[in-house]
């Protein structure tokens, strides 16, 4: 009897410049190195059965990336966590793992918000506060988004849900934000920079959460599983 394991992992500074595809390939290769009985898709080109949360922007670190791996045999989440950590390259770390009950919806179909912690070197807390106050008063902040199908106008304002504490740190300012992520609406990291008016390439950004937001209630994707050890 097989099993699906959901896990949360971190992406550190040394691997933050990987593209999404690079990251997936790296995780897949590490999984193969564990020798665990990963399930494969059928057909001429069998692929390991693995799925993930939303792509981490290039250059951004994270404490809250998620993956679901399907195995042909029962694999204990604890054993998985230990073994996978042994085989992941430096910069990746599994922080939690659970067995997923059957019928749990895919990560991508439920995650709809993300929290970022942003350090802006040389940024001023006063200026950020002023910007946030102004944003609170406006309903629209329209930009042109380049998509595969061409340029599309997008109102970014409703995609920024919350700006948390704004604190001066060292020679800059640190802020936390909550923004939409996923299919219903997605605020990209460069767009977050445009909204809050900071140079996103020079900022130190960490994704601290991917959340399932239901009205006023927030759930973390790991909470779906039931610990069975």
């Amino acid at each position, binding site marked *: 009897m097989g099993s699906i394991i959901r896990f949360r992992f971190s992406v550190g*500074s*040394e691997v933050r410049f990987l593209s999404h595809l690079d990251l997936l*390939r790296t995780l897949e*290769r590490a999984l193969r*190195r564990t020798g665990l009985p990963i399930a494969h898709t059928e057909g*001429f080109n069998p692929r390991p059965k693995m799925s993930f949360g939303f792509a981490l922007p*290039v250059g951004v670190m994270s404490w809250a990336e998620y993956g679901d791996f399907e195995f042909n045999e029962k694999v204990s989440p604890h054993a998985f966590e230990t073994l996978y950590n042994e*085989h992941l390259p430096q910069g990746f770390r599994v922080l939690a793992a659970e067995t997923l009950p059957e019928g749990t919806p895919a990560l991508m179909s439920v995650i709809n918000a993300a929290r970022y912690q942003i350090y802006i070197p040389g940024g001023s807390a006063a200026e950020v506060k002023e910007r946030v106050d102004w944003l609170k008063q406006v309903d629209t902040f329209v930009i042109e988004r380049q998509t595969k199908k061409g340029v599309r106008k997008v109102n970014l304002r409703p995609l920024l849900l919350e700006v948390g504490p704004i604190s001066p740190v060292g020679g800059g300012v640190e802020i936390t934000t909550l923004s939409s992520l996923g299919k219903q609406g997605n605020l990209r990291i460069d767009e977050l920079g445009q909204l809050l008016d900071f140079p996103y390439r*020079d900022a130190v950004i960490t994704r601290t959460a991917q959340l399932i937001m239901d009205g006023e209630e927030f759930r973390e994707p790991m909470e779906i599983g039931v610990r069975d050890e």
Partner: protein
Amino acid sequence: MDKRLEPLLPYVQKPARYTNGELNAVHKEWADQITKVALAFPDIYDVGMGNLGFKILYEIINARPDALAERAYAPWLDMQQLMEERGIPLTVLESGRDLVEFDFVGFTLQHELSHTNIIKMMDLAGIPRFSHERGEEHPFIIAGGPCAYNVEPLADFFDFVVLGEGEEVINEILDLYAASRKSKGDKADFLRKVARLEGVYVPSFYTPVYTDDGMYAGLEPVEEGVPSKIRKRVLADMNTVPIPEEFVVPYVDAVHDRAMVEIMRGCSRGCRFCQAGMIYRPVRERDPELLKETLRKLVAATGYDEISLSSLSSGDYSQIGTLVTDLIAEFGPCGVGVSLPSLRLDSFGVELAEEIQKTRKTGLTFAPEAGTQRLRDVINKNVSDEDLKQVVQGAFSAGWYSIKLYFMIGLPTETEEDLDGIARLAHQVLQWGRKYGTGQRLPQVSVSVSSFVPKPHTPFQWMGQNTMEELREKQKYLKKALRHPGIRFNYPRVEESFVEAVFARGDRRLGPVLARAVDLGCQFDSWTDCFQFELWMQAFSDCGIDPHWYAQRTREFGETLPWDHLDPGLEKEFLLYEWQRALRGEPTPDCRWDYCSDCGVCPNLLVDIALAGGEA
């Protein structure tokens, strides 16, 4: 991650090329007494990571307690610009140190159009270009690889060059260097010693001689006791040297990013245009059990999902059928596929294709090289129309829908009939696809036609290349003949083949042209978007060099050639004899299965053909 590069990374394409920290990268301590070698690849990381020779040297050097090897690649243009603006020199990946801090910087000479990148990398590293400009404070700039067999255009840039297979000679060089350091010898002292190693060429110990009318007349030694010919290094037994088992696994999408194992070295098919087939002789196969054991370790150490059996002509490996079957049986259940690059028509059984297809569908590529049987006999590509028919029909019946065909134009004795032959074959293959195809998609034929570049140490080494006008005419003719739904026609620019031809058979007078070309902005010349022909022509003209004289002039058989002292073990008489047979359209059989063709390699180098089956 290099602290100087880190702030630049958000501003460049594919930043993970520059971040280091890949799985299996070796980080050794920089102790004083350790010899430091930078392996420098004259192209971007994504290309260089696929090079097997680099992996071999990396593992051998790092296995030594008294040496370390780190890697450097050419930064892409966006990164170069940022580095130059901020005064950041070229660094290696592992330790982030400047190239100038190493004892040796070793470049690989893969093809003529990467020459400018070597010079550009020295510029970026702040290392003087020419060997005579460098002092005790600079590393030895050394090189090896296929273009070492005519390194003359680059001779003035390198301190020494290694000819042939590197597995053994690299250790000899490092031993010698360690001894030289112990005895506090200077660079000149070491050069004199290293020049005595078989396979090592120190260009500055020789000076070229030219006749009054500008003909090259040979090299004169300026140092006592140096050999008049530098003979290549060759391994007698492929089973006793280290095989890389812990590839550095790149994060970015890189070429040949899979578990690659070299199943044999050398090819004695004897295609007369092919330099690799001449300079890597003789054929030496590896033991299949050793290969399987290596692949087990390699897959376990990397997590790759694809195994690649690499060689010049993998279908010719004497145990190929059982090897592929065994590998698929063992690795298939783990989701690891098998691929076979460089297959030949005649040796490629449809059964083998089907075997591979079970786990993974890869594209099928065939290289008839010429459009008619007559011309294939001239170039000794012993493939018949009947072979092609059987294989292609078999492939379509087995479910393949996409076939890629490789040809060349500008081959000796080529006529319009041969061009028509290319078009006829392409249409024929498409027809077979429509008739026998069982795939879910419409048959596709992709035809790649390159312009022939005569190469040193081949039977065609004397022949003048077609003029650019002739080649363009032929391309135009084919373009018209191949305009058809279902057929795709690709061809590189003739200007690139022209520059390649100039340097392939160049002499030392071309060194200044390379330097000038880099000054003018030439680099990444093998990237079609970066190749700037006008700048090349300006560089030639600024240096008073007529490039056509090098590319298009047919040499006299008695002429001294700029690569005569660089010796892969072939007899010149054999090459000449092969040229005469070519003109008569007489094929020469493969010495693995037929009589010895007297190329000279085995007796000259004291080696033998070695087949895994034990025969020959």
